[in-house]
């Protein structure tokens, strides 16, 4: 893995900052929530205990275990059998069950300006009518309804004569009288039963209502299913309590921004009051929310918020609040819950506190409060923290990544420079950049440069060794030679003369060797100082070939030049010297009767000078070092000329001077060997 990636991974450690901050703020949020909860619970406890004193009538109602609940209605209903004028109040009915516990009817009560509206949905699949004129009313499917108010008790029987027409028959009350008032009523058949809608007169709030629904299974049967507000065959009166009563005495005690509901033990909302902070529970206010607030709310909701319940069934316009805290409070355990508000930017805390009568739970006080303040506060803190932390982390990562990139760039540069510092032959190119930065990478660079300098110095020393040696040896050799020459002039005994001659020929060979050594140095200098000129390469080769032909003697010399001139830029005398060396080399290996071939092959962008000879193949072990200096591979060849292996080295130097290279290979048909100089030409000075 490259350095940068490693450092990036390490930089991710900085991610611990926003993470830690997040956890911290989440924890703080919980703590603050907790304290908010405590406050609200205290308020609800206070209200619950103050309820008997502050709202005594309400308290009395709560103590009544069997209440009928009447919805507040602004208008009395049209008794048409359609529940649409009940609107959303057509919900949460009281269920009337038969002896087996099956629901026979659903009762909806509503308290209008002058009537007690009643809607009853009866499920009755075996319809028994009262017959024409209602003569069989007693044994027809019917609803008996009783009203007890300050006028006493009045009863009625409601039957249908034929489907969809209702008859309200007065019944004799306990005082023996029949009610004189008739009730506006309607009866509508429904697929699984029938619906009765009627209006009872209402003069004041104190009323008790009784209902009994009889379902005869068949005409003539006399054992109906009975369901009603009472148990047993008698009409059971139950007090009617209006829902959503206002209790100013309690409202006064509410903290700001709190709303309250007082529920009876069936979770019906008997009283309600107070309100949440304006704009906190309605979705319409979302229009005014800025995107930022929404974003913050989103962050809160998903990052911070402890689990919250859903907002179902919490609506203020619910008739019953069958929600978890209420359920818990009804068992005697107060409970609080948080839930998101309809508006995205708030949450609502609900606290349900049981209302007690001695040890018995008779109702629940449900307090609700929004928590904007907390939300905004934590959001601001969190937002700032998160944002800052994130920025810090990103900045740190970016800086680290950038610096790592810069470092790895430096290391890469160093690596590339190191790889390019040497030519393939091992010569130091001398272009190694030396860093001046005072850190470890700079140190490495400088050490490397020093190393290369030393290598360069040493190879330079080795390279010039030949030249230096020849120079140093020249003087002692001159001493030897001149001494021997003098010796020859002296009269020597025959036995001594032999030694003088041998010494002499040895000195001659030594001199030749030294000349060759110094020649190599001289040629390198000549190559370095060579000036280029334009000439016709074909003509030069043609001119040279004449001499080579003579040298070849009994071997065939083939010449393969293009007929047209080959313009070339270079140093002709150096090329000539290189050719001389190649020919000399070839002559050494070509047997008598063999052939030597010199060819000029122009190509695109370069020119090939090829010298091939017929003879043994190239020595295996020296293949890639043929063109190095001072390599001698001429085993088995007797030679009077000293051979230090400079010839091919010179050929290579000349080739390189002309922007080219030289290579040697065996011929494909194994008849001999081919040396190929591929040169492009010297650049114009």
């Amino acid at each position, binding site marked *: 893995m490259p350095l940068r990636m490693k450092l990036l991974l390490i930089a991710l450690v900085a991610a611990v900052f926003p993470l830690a901050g997040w956890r911290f703020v989440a924890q703080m949020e919980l703590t603050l929530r907790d304290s908010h909860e405590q406050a609200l619970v205290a308020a609800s406890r206070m209200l619950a205990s103050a309820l008997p004193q502050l709202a005594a009538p309400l308290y009395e109602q709560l103590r009544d275990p069997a209440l009928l609940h009447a919805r507040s209605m602004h208008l009395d209903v049209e008794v048409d059998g359609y529940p649409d004028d009940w609107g959303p109040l057509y919900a949460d009915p009281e269920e009337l069950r038969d002896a087996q516990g099956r629901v026979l009817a659903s009762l909806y009560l509503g308290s209008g300006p002058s009537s007690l509206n009643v809607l009853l949905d009866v499920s009755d699949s075996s319809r028994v009518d009262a017959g024409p004129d209602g003569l069989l009313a007693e044994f027809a499917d019917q609803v008996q309804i009783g009203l007890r108010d300050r006028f006493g008790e009045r009863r009625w029987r409601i039957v249908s004569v034929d489907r969809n027409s209702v008859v309200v028959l007065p019944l004799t009350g306990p005082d023996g009288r029949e009610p004189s008032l008739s009730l506006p009523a309607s009866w509508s058949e429904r697929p699984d039963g029938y619906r009765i809608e009627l209006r009872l007169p209402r003069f004041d709030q104190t009323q008790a209502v009784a209902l009994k629904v009889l379902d005869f299974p068949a005409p003539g049967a006399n054992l109906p299913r009975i369901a009603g507000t009472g148990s047993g065959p008698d009409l059971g009166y139950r007090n009617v309590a209006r829902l959503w009563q206002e209790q100013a005495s309690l409202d006064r005690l509410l903290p700001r921004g709190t709303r309250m509901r007082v529920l009876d033990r069936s979770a019906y909302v008997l009283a309600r009051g107070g309100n949440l902070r304006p704009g906190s529970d309605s979705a319409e206010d979302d229009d005014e929310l800025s995107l930022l607030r929404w974003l913050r709310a989103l962050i809160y909701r998903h990052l911070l918020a402890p689990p919250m319940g859903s907002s179902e069934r919490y609506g203020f316009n619910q008739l019953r609040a069958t929600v978890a805290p209420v359920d818990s409070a009804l068992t005697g355990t107060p409970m609080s819950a948080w839930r998101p508000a309809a508006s995205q930017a708030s949450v609502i805390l609900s606290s349900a506190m049981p209302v007690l009568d001695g040890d018995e739970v008779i109702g629940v006080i449900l307090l609700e409060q929004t928590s904007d303040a907390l939300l905004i506060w934590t959001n601001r803190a969190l937002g700032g923290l998160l944002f800052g932390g994130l920025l810090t982390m990103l900045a740190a990562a970016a800086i680290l990544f950038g610096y790592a990139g810069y470092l790895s760039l430096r290391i890469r540069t160093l690596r590339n420079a190191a790889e390019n510092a040497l030519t393939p032959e091992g010569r130091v190119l001398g272009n190694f950049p030396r860093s001046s930065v005072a850190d470890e990478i700079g140190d490495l660079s400088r050490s490397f440069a020093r190393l290369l300098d030393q290598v360069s110095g040493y190879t330079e020393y080795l390279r010039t060794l030949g030249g230096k040696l020849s*120079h140093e040896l*020249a*003087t002692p*050799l*001159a*001493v030897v*030679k*001149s*001494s021997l*020459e*003098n010796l020859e*002039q002296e009269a020597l005994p025959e036995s001594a003369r032999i030694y003088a001659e041998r010494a002499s020929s040895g000195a001659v060979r030594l*001199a030749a060797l*030294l*000349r*060759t050594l*110094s*020649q190599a140095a*001289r*040629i390198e*200098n*000549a190559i370095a100082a060579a000036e280029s000129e334009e000439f016709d390469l074909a003509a*030069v080769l043609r*001119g*040279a070939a*004449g*001499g*080579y032909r003579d040298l070849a003697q009994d071997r065939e010399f083939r010449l393969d030049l293009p007929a047209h001139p080959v313009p070339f830029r270079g140093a*002709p*005398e150096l090329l*000539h*010297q290189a*050719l*001389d060396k190649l020919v000399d080399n070839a002559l050494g290996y070509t047997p008598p009767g063999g052939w030597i071939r010199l060819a000029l092959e122009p190509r695109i962008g370069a020119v090939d000078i090829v010298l091939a000879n017929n003879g043994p193949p190239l020595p295996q072990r020296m293949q890639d070092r043929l063109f190095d200096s001072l390599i001698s591979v001429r085993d088995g060849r007797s030679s009077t000329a000293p051979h230090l292996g400079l010839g091919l080295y010179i050929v290579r130097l000349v080739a390189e001077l002309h922007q080219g290279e030289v290579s040697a290979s065996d011929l494909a048909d194994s008849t001999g060997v081919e040396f190929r100089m591929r040169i492009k030409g010297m650049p114009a000075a």
Partner: protein
Amino acid sequence: MARQIAIVEDEPAIRANYSDALKRYGYEVHGYASRAQASTAFALRMPDLVLVDIGLGDEPEGGFDLCRELRQRSTTLPIIFLTARDSDFDIISGLRLGADDYLTKDISLQHLLARIVSLFRRVEALSLPAGKDQLLEHGSLSLQADRMLVSWKGEEVPLTVTEFWIVHAMSRYPGHVKSRDQLMSAAQVVVDEATITSHIKRIRKKFVAVDADFDAIDTLHGIGYRWKA
């Protein structure tokens, strides 16, 4: 009287060997190990020919200084430079010290003697009237063998003994190609081809200094050189 030859050479063995060889030939030889020694001696009496080694002891350019000194006192005194490296030749030639020849130390005594003989002959020839000389003329070239005088278009071209022999060899048969080997033997040296090449280069330079359009010497790569017909 025998000719006086002075050898200024700091390597005692070489000095002694050359000295012995020249004495055997009949010359009187005095050897000096340093420039100071030689200078003192020459102040008393000038020799007839001087062999100077370039690097003298702790004076790497002692030979050049001595040559300048000698030339101030005599323009005709034959002076031969000796050096271990033939790369010094370019330096010497460039300095135009007026030396009559420059040789490498590995020159054989035979060849050295040949030069000394020629130089003495030249000194004699210079003191004689011009007519007695062997004159070779070709085109703008005029060559007097004994005086070893070469002039081009009437102007004298100062050549060393070695260079003179090379030009002589080429211009005796204009149009003929002389191989390097042939030139080497004419110049009485045993050197590698590159040395011949640099001699030719210096010869050309000297002629060009006299005449910018000089191109009488043809280079035939791989074969040799020739004086244009």
